[in-house]
């Protein structure tokens, strides 16, 4: 009845005794039955493996959860993107250095404030041999924001008004208003180019089960919760990658994930917590590659509910958090203290702004000012969806208590968390880890705090909205810089989102593998960025 069926507790004897008493019915030959079936299954698995024994050069990636969907417009989770950005290509690509490079598009230009023209790379073929043309681009983009399509990427490319395809290698995109970030948007999710003909032939579900793209690997097989095998695309336009196949394995248990890396069963593992860093980097064959996350770990505040509706109270919450201490001790220095919602690594980041302050004395004053009566303040969070989320929650609860805030942590299930986001029914604060979508404040501060955004509760500020809207549609970078500066100031004053840290994302790698992680969590493996120095 429980984890390993100690239905009758510690004692076998009691079982047997009850058996004698007739309290327990007789069951038992099942052991034999299961044993036989089990060994048959094992033998079958073994045979399959022997038959498929290959001397293929393989790159094994261990992630914290299994892939869920392969249709690139049906999922935005990190573990799925890691696969789809290798099955598919985008028009543009943002590399580890944070810059935008050509990918399927060889060049692009702004023809007039609302018209972009992309030139496609010639002779690119999908895995099934079909040529990749402007029709596929048009189809993909239009589906991504089609109100009738069951996709979940509608907000990425919805600035597009129409798409024209004057010839197979030219795409002309007309936006509703000037969109300075369009080229950057095409590198993001929703922009993985899908084959129109194949998709329309097989339909949504079949496409999700057997996706066809133009990327450096092709879909080969997937045993759910075990492994996904992707064979290298030998005819890839960017050159065949350094391995013959890539295998993605879900390794949810941290000890097993790190163990698999240390034993050489995995070549790359994701989500290494800072406390495990030393172990990986000190081992003979493994190393750590870290990248400053292109996003933040923030606390999102349900600003409509007292005492959270009080501005001084929210400021006190922020001032009571000793971010330096969290970074230095809990994160072992593997994180940065942010200075606003405009993050390091993004356009218009302001390095002159000081990191967010820790000032418990001022926090106490503000709490008094807010007339706080000691209502309970909840952090509702699932555990394990961000690195160190449980530890940070406990630490912050304790820091809040130190300044007199009656805080408490409540663990919730991830699905409940999702539901509460949608219903905006969080009672207090919750964690969120917004990614800066296009390396620009528009894809970060504005995307999350614009009206209807996932973190905009009842926070509305006329000036903030005016600037956000204007900056979104302006191609004048000087104006945009000023706008985002002012918006960041307004945000820090009102604090609907309390930035906490900008973490390093740590990956464990075999020393033989040369690859640098991307700040936006997209795990691209291409010929130019992956080397495997072994036979």
């Amino acid at each position: 009845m429980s984890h390993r069926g100690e239905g009758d507790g510690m004692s076998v004897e009691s079982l047997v005794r009850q058996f004698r008493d007739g309290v327990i019915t007789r069951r038992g030959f099942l052991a034999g039955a299961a044993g036989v079936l089990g060994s048959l299954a094992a033998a079958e698995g073994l045979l399959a493996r022997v038959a498929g024994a290959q001397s293929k050069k393989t790159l094994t990636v261990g992630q914290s959860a299994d892939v869920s969907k392969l249709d690139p417009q049906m999922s935005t989770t990190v573990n799925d993107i890691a696969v789809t950005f290798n099955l598919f290509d985008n028009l543009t690509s943002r590399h580890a250095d944070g810059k935008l490079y050509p990918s399927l598009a060889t060049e692009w230009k702004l023809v007039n404030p609302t018209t972009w023209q992309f030139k496609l790379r010639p002779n690119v073929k999908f895995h099934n041999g079909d040529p990749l043309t402007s029709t596929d681009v048009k189809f993909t983009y239009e589906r991504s924001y089609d109100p009738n399509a069951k996709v979940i990427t509608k907000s990425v490319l919805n600035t597009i008004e129409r798409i024209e395809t004057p010839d197979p290698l030219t795409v002309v995109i007309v936006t509703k208003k000037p969109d300075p970030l369009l080229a950057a948007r095409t590198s993001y999710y929703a922009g993985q180019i899908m084959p129109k003909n194949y998709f329309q032939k097989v339909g949504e579900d079949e496409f999700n089960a057997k996706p066809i793209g133009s990327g450096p690997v092709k879909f080969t097989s997937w045993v759910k919760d075990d492994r996904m095998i992707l064979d290298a695309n030998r005819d890839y336009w960017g050159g065949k990658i350094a391995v013959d196949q890539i295998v993605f394995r879900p390794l949810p248990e941290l000890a097993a994930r790190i163990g698999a890396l240390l034993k050489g069963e995995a070549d790359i593992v994701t989500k290494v917590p800072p406390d495990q860093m030393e172990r990986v980097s000190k081992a003979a064959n493994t190393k750590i590659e870290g990248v400053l996350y292109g996003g933040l770990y923030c606390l999102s505040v349900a600003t409509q509910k007292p005492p959270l509706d009080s501005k001084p109270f929210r400021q006190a919450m922020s001032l009571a958090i000793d971010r330096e201490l969290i970074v230095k001790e809990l994160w072992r220095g593997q994180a940065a203290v942010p200075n606003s919602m405009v993050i390091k690594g993004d356009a218009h980041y302001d390095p002159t702004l000081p990191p967010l302050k820790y000032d418990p004395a001022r926090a106490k004053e503000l709490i008094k000012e807010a007339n706080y009566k000691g209502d309970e303040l909840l952090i509702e969070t699932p555990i394990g969806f961000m690195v160190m989320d449980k530890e940070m929650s406990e630490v912050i609860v304790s820091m809040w208590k130190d300044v007199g805030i009656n805080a408490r942590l409540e663990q919730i299930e991830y699905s409940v968390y999702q539901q509460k986001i949608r219903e905006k029914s969080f009672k207090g604060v919750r964690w969120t880890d917004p990614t800066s979508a296009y390396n620009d404040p528009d894809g970060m501060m504005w995307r999350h705090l614009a009206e209807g955004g996932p973190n905009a509760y009842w926070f509305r500020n006329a000036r903030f909205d005016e600037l956000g809207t204007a900056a979104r549609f302006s191609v004048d970078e000087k104006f945009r810089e000023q706008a985002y500066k002012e918006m960041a100031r307004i945000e820090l004053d009102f604090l609907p989102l309390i930035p906490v840290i900008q973490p390093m994302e740590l990956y464990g790698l075999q020393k033989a593998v040369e690859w640098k992680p991307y700040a936006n969590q997209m795990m691209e493996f291409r010929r130019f960025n992956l080397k495997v120095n072994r036979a």
Partner: protein
Amino acid sequence: MASSTHASVENRLTDEEPIVRRRTVPLFVWASAAFLLVVVLAAAAAPLVSPFDPIRQSLRERLKAPALFAEEGRQRHLLGTDQLGRDILSRVIYGSRVSLAVGFAAVIIGGAIGGILGLISGYAGGVVDEIIMLVVDAQLAFPFILLAIGIIAVLGPSFGNLIIIVGLSGWVTYARLVRAQVLTIKEREFVIAIRGLGGSTWRILVSHIVPNTLAPFLVVTTLELARTILLESTLSFLGLGIQPPTPSWGGMLNEGRGYLDSAWWISAFPGLVLMLTALVVSRVGDWLRDVLDPTLRGA
């Protein structure tokens, strides 16, 4: 429920050698009792015996190894500190409160529900018996962990809900045990005689069946106690256990699972106490059974 008896099974009831026939109390029982007493006392007097506040964090002191003597200018943490710099010893002491409370409360719930349903089922027979035993079968066929997750998703995680779930996981054992005992006793001559003389059902139940069932009931209780303490730790593993920052042994064991080879002390000490407690309680249960139930000693 088929209820025939296997002589061969009867003989296997104890792995202790038949020297248990002797009436002396073995050393291990004394030792076990002493250990349990220490645990219960520590739980009761937690605020007095804990060197630190169990939920007080100190990030600068995190992951300190156990030390008999403090470093210069630092506080001494006999069993080390955890990932948030909290004192392990204090947490183990306070954790005993939660673990024992969950264990006892769950056993009481399971025992009460199971005992009463078993009594009714065994005594009434017929349709009532059928229905109750049907529920028993259903629960046995049900993967309980899944039910627990479902229930917590509905009710939310809290101490009370945890106790209810752990309690519900164990009632079947009691019900079957009590029912079997009732069935045996019901047909004995003296009960039939009393009934023949017009004795009331309740009276028979209370004055004869209940006392006769008490001994095996007690034995099962000790075994269940050990099981529930373990079950709490499994629920913690699944994120369904006691909410932080309240310490429980199972929860601590679970929190330390990412640190097994870098900071072994986080999980080793609560794990040790948890295992010892489970072990000791169940061994005492084994011994109790041998002493209390004469049918077992003739082997």
